[in-house]
Every structure is written in C-alpha cells, then in structure tokens.
C-alpha cells in the first residue's frame, strides 16, 4: 500500500525499510491523530458569491440542514459588502465551526466594474490576519480561529445562455486566491436539455478564459473514481429548499409548483446531493489543505517578497530569513543613524541662527540705548547752559537792584528831610 511519492522520497533519503518481527501497535496512529482533531474541532469557511436573491442563503440552509437566521437583503446597496457569520455545528462527536460569508449587493449596482474588489480584499484580509499570527514572536496557531476562506461557491444565474461578464471577471480575480466551485442556481428553471448545453457552454467559457476552478482530487485511490466522475458534472445545477412536501409517504425537501414537485434530494431533479457529497463528505479536508498549502502559500510568498525577503541571495546562494532580517536591520539602523545625524545638524543650524538673531537684537538694543543716552546728555547740557544764563541774569539783576538801591539811598540822603517833613505834615493832619 506504499504511496508512490512516499516511496520515492524514501529512496532519495536512502532510508531502508525494516520488517518487524511482531506486532508493535502503531497502527493506532491515525486514530490518535483523529482523536486529537476531534478534541480540537474543525473549522470550515464558505464564501458565497452571487447576485441578490439568487438563493445563496437557501442553499446553505439546505446544505447544512438547518435554518441559519438571516433576512432578505435589499437590492439597493450602493456597493458590495461582505457579511460573515459563524456557527457551531455538531454531528455525533465532530464539532464544526462553520463560517458563512455572503456577498451583499453583488450585481445590484449599475457600475459593476469594481464589484469583485471587496471580495478579493476580504479574502486577502483573512490571509493577512493568519500571516500576522504566524509571524508573531509569541504565537498560538493551534488555538487560532482560522478565518481563511476554504471554498467559494459561485452562483451562476440560470439564463441558459452563457457567463456574464461580471461572473467571468470576478472568477478570474478569485481563482488564484480561493477554491472556486461554480454552481448553477435555481436550476429548476432550466430544462434538462438546456441544462446540458448550458453546462458545456459554461465550462468551455471558463477554460477558454483561463479560469481555474477547483478540481476534486483524483490522486487517492478511494475517492479518485467518484471525484473524477463529479469533475465531469461541473458546474452543479442546484435547487435549495427547506420547505417539506409530502411525496409518496415521506416528507421531503422540495419546491412545489402547480405542475409538479421539484425534490431537492432527488438526483434526477438536480445535483444538490452531488454538491453536498463533494463539498462535505468527500473533500472538506482537501479543500482546507489546498487553501493552506496553495492559496495561502502563494499569498505569503508574494507578501514576503514584497517586504524584501528572499530565499536566494545575490549570487544565487540560499539566504536564510535571519540573514535577510540582519541585512535589513543593518540598513534600517544605518538609515536611522543618518537621520539622526541630519536631525543633529539641523538642530545645530537652528541654534546658530537663533543665536545670531539674538545677538543682532542685542546689538540693536545697545545702539538704541546709546543713542538715547546721547540725547539725554545733550538735553542736559542745554539745560545747564540755560541755567547758567539764568543765573547770570539773576546775578545781573541783583547787581542792578543793589545799584539802584544805593542810588536811591544817596538821593534820599540829599533830599531826605524834606521828604520826611512832608510826610509828617501829611500824617499829622489826619490825627
């Protein structure tokens, strides 16, 4: 039961096989692994892309046989938004953390050029979150809630003709990021013959436009045959319904029309059972693995290369992450130092300038002060002069006064008695 790749790998490493002489007991290893997984629980994330009203929520409800609470979206959203909801399901001892992401408003706008962008951004954001966790120093990957999209169910309108441009464009932008499984929605509106032609047309359009949809894996013996057969039946024409109708003596999920009943789980009526089989029962693990080993690795490689990390150095020598880190750090350090120098220089420059300014101001002030002092001095001198003149005048006046008094006295002495007698006579008359 040796798988060819394991055998080849072993040959390369020159590891010889041993035969055991008895029962050792490690055939329980797969069971140990499974038990560990049961304890951890599983995570599965589905992205549904399709126009409003095409039946995304109904199909998901039917697939998981439950009524996830949801209400109808309006047709009047200005742009495409993604709405994610997580549910915990349990079947016997398997716990499944299921996340359903729906596109709201897809195909409702008049200008649909950028419709796919929010979807691509959302998928990238989940990859980015995982990458960030992976690159942390203290990380906890085994408790990390993996939100990366494992499968994208792309709902195609059952026009019966061909793919819309919007569909082609969107799928082309998504095929390198996520596993795409296209489904024909509301397949009960397409007749059997039309359906065949439609499927062929769709697949040929996808192929000719180079859109890579998910292929069910055919490398494992147990599921190769059925997967190969299913690959031929893509895209699955599905009908979803949670309403039950009595058919025969059983209640089955179906859609009742005046002309008949479309049974969801009847393989003659639609491919719903095939979709459920492929999506959940046979390939859930492969979808998760492809997401991790192919799509996520591609994203990771691109992102790290963008950041400047590379596995191969300039002379084609292998370069370890550490070397790149060191080199970058060195570079960054150098730049930091350069910036520091620059800052220092600028600082010194500014200081000099300020100093010069201050000196200038000081000089001005000094000049002003001196000028004022001079003026003051001049004033003073003027005043001194004036005072001197004034004093001289006073002296002159005093002299004059003194001279006048002397003269007066002299003249009085000469004619003094007369003046006296006159004065007395005058005075005595009044007595």
């Amino acid at each position, binding site marked *: 039961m040796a798988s060819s790749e394991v055998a080849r790998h072993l040959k390369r490493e020159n590891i010889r096989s041993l035969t055991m002489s008895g029962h050792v*007991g490690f055939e329980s290893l797969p069971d140990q692994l*499974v038990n560990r997984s*049961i304890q951890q629980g599983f995570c599965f994330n589905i992205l549904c892309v399709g126009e409003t009203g095409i039946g995304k929520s109904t199909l998901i409800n039917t697939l998981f*046989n439950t009524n996830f609470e949801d209400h109808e979206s309006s047709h009047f959203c200005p742009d495409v938004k993604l709405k994610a909801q*997580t549910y915990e*399901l349990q079947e016997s001892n398997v716990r499944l953390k299921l996340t359903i992401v729906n596109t709201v408003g897809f195909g409702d706008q008049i200008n649909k050029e950028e419709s796919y962008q929010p979807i691509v951004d959302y998928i990238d954001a989940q990859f980015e979150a995982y990458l960030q966790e992976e690159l942390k120093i203290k990380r906890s990957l085994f408790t990390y809630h993996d939100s990366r999209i494992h499968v994208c169910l792309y709902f195609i309108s059952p026009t019966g003709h061909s793919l819309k441009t919007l569909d082609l464009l969107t799928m082309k932008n998504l095929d390198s990021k996520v596993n795409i499984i296209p489904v024909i929605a509301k397949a009960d509106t397409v007749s059997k013959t039309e359906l065949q032609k439609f499927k062929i047309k769709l697949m040929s359009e996808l192929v000719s436009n180079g859109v890579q949809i998910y292929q069910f894996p055919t490398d494992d013996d147990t599921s190769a045959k059925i997967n190969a057969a299913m690959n031929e039946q893509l895209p699955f024409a599905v009908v979803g319904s949670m309403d039950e109708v009595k058919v025969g003596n059983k209640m089955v999920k179906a859609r009742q029309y005046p002309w008949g009943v479309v049974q969801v789980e009847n393989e003659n009526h639609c491919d719903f059972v095939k979709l459920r*089989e492929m999506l959940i029962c046979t390939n859930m*693990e492969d979808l998760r693995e492809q997401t991790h080993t192919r799509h996520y690795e591609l994203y990771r490689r691109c992102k790290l290369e963008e950041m400047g990390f590379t596995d191969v150095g300039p002379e084609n020598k292998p370069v370890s992450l550490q070397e790149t880190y060191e080199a970058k750090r060195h570079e960054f350090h150098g730049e930091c130092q350069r910036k520091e120098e620059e800052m220092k220089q600028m600082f010194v420059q500014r200081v000099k300038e300020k100093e010069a300014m201050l000196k200038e101001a000081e000089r001005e002030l000094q000049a002003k002060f001196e000028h004022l002092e001079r003026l003051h001095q001049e004033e003073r001198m003027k005043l001194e002069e004036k005072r001197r003149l004034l004093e001289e005048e006073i002296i002159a006046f005093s002299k004059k006064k003194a001279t006048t008094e002397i003269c007066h006295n002299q003249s009085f002495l000469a004619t003094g008695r007369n003046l006296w007698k006159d004065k007395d006579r005058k005075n005595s008359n009044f007595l």
Partner: protein
Amino acid sequence: MDPLRRSPSPCSSSRPSSPSTPACEMFGPIGIEAVLGQLKIKAMKMGFEFNIMVVGQSGLGKSTMVNTLFKSKVWKSNPPGLGLPTPQTLQLHSVTHVIEEKGVKLKLTVTDTPGFGDQINNDNLRPLDIEFLQRLCRTVNVVPVIARADSLTMEEREAFRHRIQKNLRTHCIDVYPQKCFDEDINDKILNSKLRDRIPFAVVGADREHLVNGRCVLGRKTKWGIIEVENMAHCEFPLLRDLLIRSHLQDLKDITHNVHYENYRVIRLNESHLLPRGPGWVNLDPASPGQLTSRRPFKVCRGAHDVSEDEF
C-alpha cells in the same frame, strides 16, 4: 484492542467559544462526520514520523530496548566488553528507518548518545543527572526509565522508584506526561496512573524463547527467563503503550506546540530589537521589556521637539 482515548492537547489551549458563535441545531445528519475518514486517508498517505532519543551509558541496554520496542533490528546492538574504548566525548548518532504496520507507515529516527554519565545503581539521582534532567525537561519530553530492572527485586524496584520520584519532585523536574498539559478529568485520571509508575522498570530483549509452549521475547538467565512483555516481570508493556499505542501523537503535539514555540520565541528574541517601521514584519511586543526603546529614536524625537519650539 487499543483503547481509543482522547489525546490531551497542550495546555493553555482551552478554546473559548466566543459568544458570537451560536450553536445551531441541524435537523439531521449531513455527513460532517465523514471528515474524520478524510483525515485518516490523508494521514495514511502521508505517513507518520517519530524521533526518539535514548540517553544513558552504553551497556545499559539502550539499543536492545529500542529494538524490543519496535521489534526489529533498529540498532545492531554492541555487546559489552568487546574491548572497544568508550568514547570520551558525547557524540550523537542517529539512524532512520521506515516501519509499516497495517498500512500505516512510520518513519522512525533513533538518536543514541554514547558515553554519557555513569551507571545509575542503587543511589539517588546524582547532581549531574539532576542538572541534566532539569535542562532536558525544558526543551523536550523526557520519559525516565529504570534500565536493567532485572537486577532489582520487586521490593528494591518499588523503593528505587519512590526514591527517584521524590528526587524528581524535589528538584521540580517535570517529566512526561506533564501535569500542566492535562486537558480534562479523563486525562488527569489516566495520566496520574502513568505518573505513579514512572520511571518504568524495563528489561529489553530481542531474542525469543519458548515458555509454556509460547514464543515470547525474553532474557534467559540461569535462574529463569524474564519475559519482556509480562507485566509481572517488568513494565515494558507500559512503556510501549505510552510511547506508541496511546501517547505518540500527544508527544508530537507537545513538542510542536510547546517546546518548539518556546525555542522559537527565545531564538527570535535573541537577534531582534527590530524597531517598527513601514514594511516591517509586525512582531508582537508581547511583554514590556521585550522590546526596549532604542536610543536613536529618543534622540530623533528630542531634536524634533526642540525644532518645533517657538522662541
């Protein structure tokens, strides 16, 4: 057959179910269970790996023990006393084989460490052993084993075991299965039973002898045949069950999720002190003091502030 027990996952991983994830009732099974089968198929295809290291002085029966565990000539056992000088340096020596059982492929790598330490006889653990064990337990899952247990009587064996257990407890040597990784009550019960019997007293033998009409693996001595797989004679079956039949996946999980992650943290912290900047990997400054602020930054900021001041 083998009891399908739940492997305990490493500690600190009790997954909180966030309040925003409602539990949904399905009206009927849809086949989610089939994912277990898918897992098994994938595992069988990829095969398993297991790396084991045996430590102890040569002559203790390490090679024979490994051969007995995997029932094949993993090592060509070197009989003692061949006149080969025991190597003075500690040289590690690995050998890899692939063994297959019922479609399950196991790539087994056994690493031997010749020339270490003295033979442990009826003493307590020597200081060298204690130091060695303490360091080992921090980086790898350690399962201590009493070798050549056929030289001890049952009473001596129990006494020795208790002495060793006490020694391990006193020096805080956390051997496998570590208490802190017990997930739930089932694990605790199961692992406690194991912890009671550790170190296992084992005898290795790769020859078969006829006992009571059955062909058994054993050591033939003058006074009897010690049956390796007989629980009354030695505890080899316990060791084998622990290592292979029940706890192998758990050993690998703890190595990957705990020991390797610890190593990674230490290693990344060594050469890091990476300042944040555009285009840089977002390394989590998990605890203060892990990332110390660098001087250049401080100076830069200071200069910047000064230049903004108005005079």
